[in-house]
């Protein structure tokens, strides 16, 4: 019982907008300065998207080098030192410059004010400043890589980073310190915007679920990021002054660094995954043509995940020598994260159940997202179990697990969101068959890359080594082959989406028939100040009536 865009087109449903071009946020000013000095949340969102895509390409190249090295068991392509620097560069770029800002800073910036019926975020200047801080942070980090790179891994564990590693650690730490403020400002801006800028009638329980997800994310950004800032500062001071705050020889405690680091970096994982969870909620309800199942449970589960995220950090340290009682406590709490995560997956399935599912390409990404996120989440339970974690810690099982969550979850969710909102952002449609092909390549390539790594990790292949026993080669070759397919799945949308943004057929205001303000009250692309007047909200967000809606669509 599904209908595709092409079928609707064949039935004469007007999908393409033939109206003469209007003044939009894209064409009302065209100078370079009008972009670089813009205070418009939409343009800032687009600039974030461009700069992040650049960083994603860089991080992807480093990933490619890693996979190329691992085709053979011997470390024959790179020296072990260069390999260390390569995976550090991959990790730092992908975690801090891609995954953390991925959805909130690009799609969130663009869409969230539209969903609220607001003209802009609460603090447009801070918004622009946060983009500049992102760029400056990126310049510092890339500078460190050009100066010879850093070999500590993205975790910067002491005493390796404080005592033994080269001075570039300081440059990267400075870059991440600056970048942290970019993240804090985005979170601050979003919280205030959601509290204070909602349209009349848009009560908390009428907010689209994407907004709820961004709200939960912003809380983490606000409360977590300053801790990594002070941790990196202490690390820097330790290096400069020669004090051993994390150095056991000088009375310090390296475990303290791990505590402080993970107090931010575990919640940071939820900064990455919460916004795509919100995107998935939007996609599932829109393309199932059905009000979302369990709205309040989904909204509440986003907040619950944000809260839990702060009290589970030590599950990264089960083998670091923390007290066994603390380990049991953190293990139990970690298990409890499965509850809100499970709520989300089941509510999506409940939404699709007996919906009138439309299999357009964003929905394909949503399917991929749900599947990969589920595998990623469930394998997390293996790692939160104290006994199995001792076997699996620091193996490829961990690598596979967090890639399933961060890449299978966050990046696939981002791609789904981009395909969903692209017509809104640029007012033009992309090539639908290519988009479906890309969704397929990403899903297939991803599983081929990372599923074998679960098996490798279970067999005991440790992470962060450039060589491995010969009997593990088959799985590694699968993994590298999968990376090629995955890479193709990423490159394709970069090309056809960019093409579509300039030359695609014009999209109508609401090509998916969605019900939230970003679709119903603004043009595609939106005008510079978003709305003609002040929109007023009178209903719940997802008021689809499946049968009626289908008739409605066909009647046109």
């Amino acid at each position: 019982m599904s209908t595709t865009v092409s079928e609707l087109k064949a039935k004469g449903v007007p999908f393409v907008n033939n109206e003469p071009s209007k003044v939009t946020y894209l064409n009302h000013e065209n100078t370079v300065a009008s972009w670089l000095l813009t205070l418009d949340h939409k343009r800032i969102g687009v600039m974030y998207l461009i700069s992040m895509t650049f960083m994603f390409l860089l991080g992807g190249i480093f990933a490619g080098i890693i996979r190329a090295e691992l085709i053979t068991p011997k470390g024959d392509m790179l020296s072990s030192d260069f390999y260390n620097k390569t995976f550090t560069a991959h990790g730092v770029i992908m975690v801090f410059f891609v995954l953390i800002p991925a959805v909130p800073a690009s799609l969130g910036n663009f869409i969230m004010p539209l969903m609220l019926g607001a003209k802009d975020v609460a603090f447009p200047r801070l918004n622009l400043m946060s983009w500049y801080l992102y760029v400056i942070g990126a310049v510092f980090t890339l500078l460190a890589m050009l100066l010879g790179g850093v070999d500590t891994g993205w975790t910067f564990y002491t005493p390796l980073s404080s005592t033994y590693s080269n001075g570039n650690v300081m440059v990267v730490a400075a870059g991440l310190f600056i970048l942290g403020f970019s993240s804090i400002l985005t979170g601050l801006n979003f919280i205030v915007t959601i509290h204070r800028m909602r349209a009349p009638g848009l009560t908390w329980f009428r907010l689209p679920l994407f907004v709820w997800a961004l709200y939960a994310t912003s809380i983490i950004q606000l409360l977590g990021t300053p801790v990594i800032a002070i941790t990196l500062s202490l690390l820097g001071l330790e290096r400069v002054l020669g004090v051993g705050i994390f150095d056991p020889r000088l009375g310090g405690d390296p475990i303290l660094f791990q505590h402080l680091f993970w107090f931010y970096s575990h919640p940071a994982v939820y900064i990455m995954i919460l916004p795509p969870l919100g995107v998935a909620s939007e996609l599932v309800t829109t393309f199932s043509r059905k009000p979302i199942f369990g709205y309040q449970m989904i909204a509440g589960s986003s907040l619950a995940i944000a809260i839990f995220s702060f009290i589970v950090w030590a599950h990264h340290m089960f083998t670091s020598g923390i007290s066994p009682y603390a380990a049991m406590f953190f293990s139990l709490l970690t298990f409890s994260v499965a509850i809100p995560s499970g709520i989300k997956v089941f509510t999506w399935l409940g939404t699709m159940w007996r919906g009138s599912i439309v299999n357009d390409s964003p929905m394909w990404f949503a399917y991929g997202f749900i599947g990969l996120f589920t595998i990623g989440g469930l394998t997390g339970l293996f790692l939160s179990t104290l006994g199995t974690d001792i076997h699996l810690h620091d193996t490829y099982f961990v690598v596979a697990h967090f890639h399933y969550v961060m890449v299978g979850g966050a990046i696939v969710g981002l791609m789904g969101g981009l395909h969903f909102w692209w017509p809104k952002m640029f007012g033009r449609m992309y090539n639908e068959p290519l988009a479906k092909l890309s969704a397929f390549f990403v899903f297939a390539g991803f599983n081929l890359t990372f599923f074998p790594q679960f098996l490798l990790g279970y067999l005991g292949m440790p992470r962060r080594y450039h060589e491995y026993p010969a009997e593990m080669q088959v799985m590694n070759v699968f993994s590298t082959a999968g990376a090629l397919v995955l890479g193709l799945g990423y490159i394709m949308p970069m090309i056809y989406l960019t093409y579509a943004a300039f030359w695609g057929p014009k999209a109508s205001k609401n090509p998916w028939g969605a019900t939230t303000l970003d679709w119903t009250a603004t043009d595609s692309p939106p005008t510079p100040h978003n709305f003609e007047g002040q929109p007023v909200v009178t209903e719940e967000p997802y008021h689809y009536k499946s049968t009626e809606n289908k008739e409605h669509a066909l009647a046109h």
Partner: protein
Amino acid sequence: MHTDTKVTGHSGQVQAGGHDVGHGHASDLAHHFENHYQQHEAGNLGMWMFLSTEVLFFGGMFGAYTVYRYKFEKVFEQASNILDPLLGGINTIILLFSSVTMALAVRSAQQGKGKAIVGWMAATIIFGLAFLGVKAFEWKHDFAIHVFPTKDFCWSYAREMHKTHQHPEYKPNAPAKFYEEDAKNPESKQGKLFFFLYFTMTGLHGLHMIIGFGIMAVIMVYAWNGYYTKNYFVPVESVGLYWHFVDLVWIFLYPLLYLLGAHLASH
């Protein structure tokens, strides 16, 4: 699949006569806000959110302090005893007065008295400078007895100077015999950790004060020129919140750093 605007519901209606840019706005209302109340509340909430970030920023250090205070209780008390609780106490009182003048500056802003804002902020800055002056005096002594946590840090020299109530002039290094004594005594490293935390925490606190001076200077210029009105004074209120926060950090630093070992005999 719609191309029209007939979709109703979540969005449906559009209110006529909403604000467009450049129409019907007071000069002190940014274009994206509907009214002064919304603008004020947004600015206010933003500042509170920023302060919550600051709490966590300092919180990382308070966490580190707690860990080492627990591990090295005895040495932390001895190290704390080297600091002068009287000077710290005077500074506490000075800062509390600066908070009073800051509160009066915000009050003046609420009443729309621009010139009074300038006066009270100037008073706040003077109190702040007095605080930093006392701090500089303390730090000068701290450097002279070699408790600044670099290579020439010397725990036993500092203890000796403190016990005998000496105030030596600064020399690049303490006498060699004290360094030899330090090398034999593992407590010297723990003392160094205390002073690392002391200098980092008070240093970061002082840095926040200096940043506060900068913001106040800008606001004073605007206030003098009548930029703030009864409807728009969020920046004044925000810097007020910021200043009270910085003050509050000191209220925690003072007992943790100065009073921790004040009861010990050598004082």
